[in-house]
């Protein structure tokens, strides 16, 4: 039985008007018999986020830096300045912690490799996520395997943690015949349906409202899966951020909104992006908790996400989490951040590298050693090199593939256009590739 058939059967068993719609489900809970506690918790969380961001002070070391607007003491943290955990340390096993660490290192190495391949002219474009590894891994680690993920284009670590094959991700960078997307998109626009990792789009924040819709569908089908979606500080200015949170708040959908506030939308700093002191405060207006965390503290990111995921899964609605970090690399392989970045701010964040902070925590707990770290890096580098070699060897898609997957079946128009193109090829020989390098 196919998944759809199974679902149809499941839905068919229920009589009309029996599927549990979220607002009803929640309305029942808040009306009082027995299970009012979760709703109260959600309200409390809203209050907490509102109170804490009021009157918060810049954190040590940020005085005089433009970042102080975001990096304040209302951020939730687990790792202190010595990278030791405070009382909020999550109860994660050594294996899980090491898996998370491994994923952060792999993400960094993958990004370095992607940039290098672009600089060598072997791929056309790359978008690195340097400095944002804690957010990607910390959020992904808090999810169940069947939860839906609606990423932006700067989340390779989320794909890797969910289990996307590095080889297939690399094939996407070449857009070759082994690329899942068949070379239809620019590099880093991955898509892995089996892993419930939704196809990445370039227009900003379009995925935010889609995540709300996917999580609503889970509720309507009586499933427990939630949806998580990622966007940047610039993304919160977009229409689809607003609709995504408006609909989620009104319908109390099981959605988790992750704002990676890396303080820059290409070159525009976040204080020019929005008048709000704290982007997480926007959540209050949509009727959901807005939590702000230190985005370079993977354990704080994990805690906040876990709390939001649990809230969503038990039917208490959506959460927005603002993860404050800094993009220490370029926007993309075509960007030169030295044209616009504030050097002292850059230096400040460089020192707060999330991988170093987590490694020091793990070493402090005697879970990890410098020796093991070197071995891990060597091992991951070798695996990456092998995957690069295999991916680069794949041929491009056949030219007739340009017409496939526009519709379920080729329309008469597409059939005729394909025929004409093949005829053109017979007359002129191979099509000459005259594209120039991507300029942005």
């Amino acid at each position, binding site marked *: 039985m196919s*998944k*759809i058939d199974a*679902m*149809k059967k499941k*839905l*068919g068993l229920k009589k*009309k*008007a*029996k*599927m*549990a*719609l979220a607002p*009803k489900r929640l309305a029942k809970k808040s009306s009082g018999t027995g299970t009012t506690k979760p709703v109260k918790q959600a309200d409390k969380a809203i209050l907490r986020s509102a109170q804490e961001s009021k009157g918060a002070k810049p954190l040590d070391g940020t005085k005089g830096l433009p970042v102080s607007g975001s990096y304040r003491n209302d951020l939730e943290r687990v790792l202190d300045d010595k990278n030791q955990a405070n009382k909020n340390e999550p109860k994660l096993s050594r294996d899980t912690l090491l898996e998370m660490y491994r994923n952060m290192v792999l993400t960094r190495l993958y990004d370095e490799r992607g940039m290098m391949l672009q600089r060598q002219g072997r791929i056309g474009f790359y978008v690195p996520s340097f400095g944002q590894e804690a957010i990607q891994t910390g959020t992904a680690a808090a999810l169940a395997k069947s939860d*839906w993920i*609606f990423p932006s284009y700067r989340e390779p670590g989320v794909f890797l943690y969910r289990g996307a094959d590095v080889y297939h991700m690399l094939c996407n960078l070449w857009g070759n015949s082994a*690329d*899942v*997307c*068949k070379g*239809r*998109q620019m590099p880093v*626009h991955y*898509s*892995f*349906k089996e892993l419930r990792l*939704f*196809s990445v*789009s370039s*227009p900003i924040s*379009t995925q*935010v*409202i*889609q*995540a*709300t*819709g*996917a*999580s*609503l*569908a*889970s509720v*309507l*089908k009586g499933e427990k899966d939630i*949806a998580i979606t990622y966007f940047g500080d610039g993304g919160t200015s977009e*229409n*689809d951020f*607003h*609709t*995504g949170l*408006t*609909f989620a708040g*009104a319908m109390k959908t099981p959605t988790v909104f992750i704002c990676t506030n890396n303080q820059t939308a290409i070159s525009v700093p976040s204080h020019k992006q929005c008048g709000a002191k704290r982007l997480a405060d926007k959540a209050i207006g949509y009727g959901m908790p807005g939590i702000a965390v230190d985005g370079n503290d993977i354990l704080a990111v994990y805690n906040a996400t876990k709390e939001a995921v649990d809230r969503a899964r038990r039917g208490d609605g959506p959460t927005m989490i603002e993860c404050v970090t800094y993009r220490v690399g370029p926007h993309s392989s075509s960007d030169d951040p030295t044209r616009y970045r504030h050097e002292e701010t850059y230096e400040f964040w460089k020192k707060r590298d999330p991988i170093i902070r987590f490694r020091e925590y793990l070493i402090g707990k005697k879970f990890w050693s410098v020796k093991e770290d070197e071995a891990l890096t060597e091992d991951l580098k070798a695996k990456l090199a092998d995957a690069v070699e295999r991916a680069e060897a794949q041929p491009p898609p056949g030219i007739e593939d340009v017409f*496939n*997957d*526009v*519709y*379920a079946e080729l*329309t*008469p*128009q597409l059939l005729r256009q394909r025929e004409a193109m093949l005829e053109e090829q017979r007359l002129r020989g191979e099509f000459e590739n005259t594209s120039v390098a991507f300029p942005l």
Partner: protein
Amino acid sequence: MPNMTLLQAVRDGLMTEMALDKRIVLMGEDVGHNGGVFRATEGLQKEFGEERVMDTPLAESGIIGLAVGMALNGLRPVPEIQFMDFIFPAFDQIVSEVAKIRYRSGGEFTCPMVIRTPYGGGIKGGHYHSQSAETYFTNTPGLKVVIPSNPYDTKGLLIASLRDEDPVLFMEPKRLYRSLKGEVPDGPYTVEIGKANVVRQGTDVTLIAWGAMVQVALKAAELCEPRGASCEVVDLRTLVPLDEETILESVKKTGRVVIVQEAPKTCGFASEVSALIAEEAILYLEAPITRVTGFDTPFPYTLEHVYLPDPERVALAVGKVKNF
């Protein structure tokens, strides 16, 4: 066979298919409790519950974006855009997302949905309740664009759209919602997407139209008969994919063609049909291809009867090509 208005045929099509396919969820502004501002979804929430006929917040891009997520996760959403004039906030979701998801994911993800929207003038709606905006979407690969012209086709094309694996923009000619009645069979049936219909046979001139303009073309054909011109009328029914064969067959028979569209002239869909005929059948033509269209102006309020193609304007064009 029951006699129904076009509006009742919409409702009947939705109700018939919703009973068969539990994945279908209707959604939009006022579609639930109120049954839609035109009453196209009247009583459906009572019949199927709030879970399958949902009132949404007032944001068109949100309605379509929400539908994308629902479709990806196995449902078959039917978002309604209350008037086509309000579809533009959702343009990005439709054009950048709905239309491209199958292609950009290498065929892995699909988002089949039927975007229903009333369109067109003749109801004193001014420029924000009257536009015929099909061309913005016919230039977007990945979407199908379906426009019925009568109650029978409305139900059949709507059910076909609900069963289609690709997203369909389903444009409903609102000036015909209550003014046009016809026989509509009980129960489910489909009218094939991508097939035009010759709704009147003729020998001298081919009139090509879609949606509300089909009635205008038919009335023009009646005016022309006593004036000595026998008109054939082709109802396109689907703009994408276009039934080129039926168009070309008729044009090759008559050698003269008038294309009638409500939308402004420049780059309207009539231009596409005109180019097709010029490319494929120019040697069969006895007269220039002629377009009768709305003007290249915003849609006017008081003077909409001057703006809109009517039977007399079409008949004048027929006279010109007949006597060329």
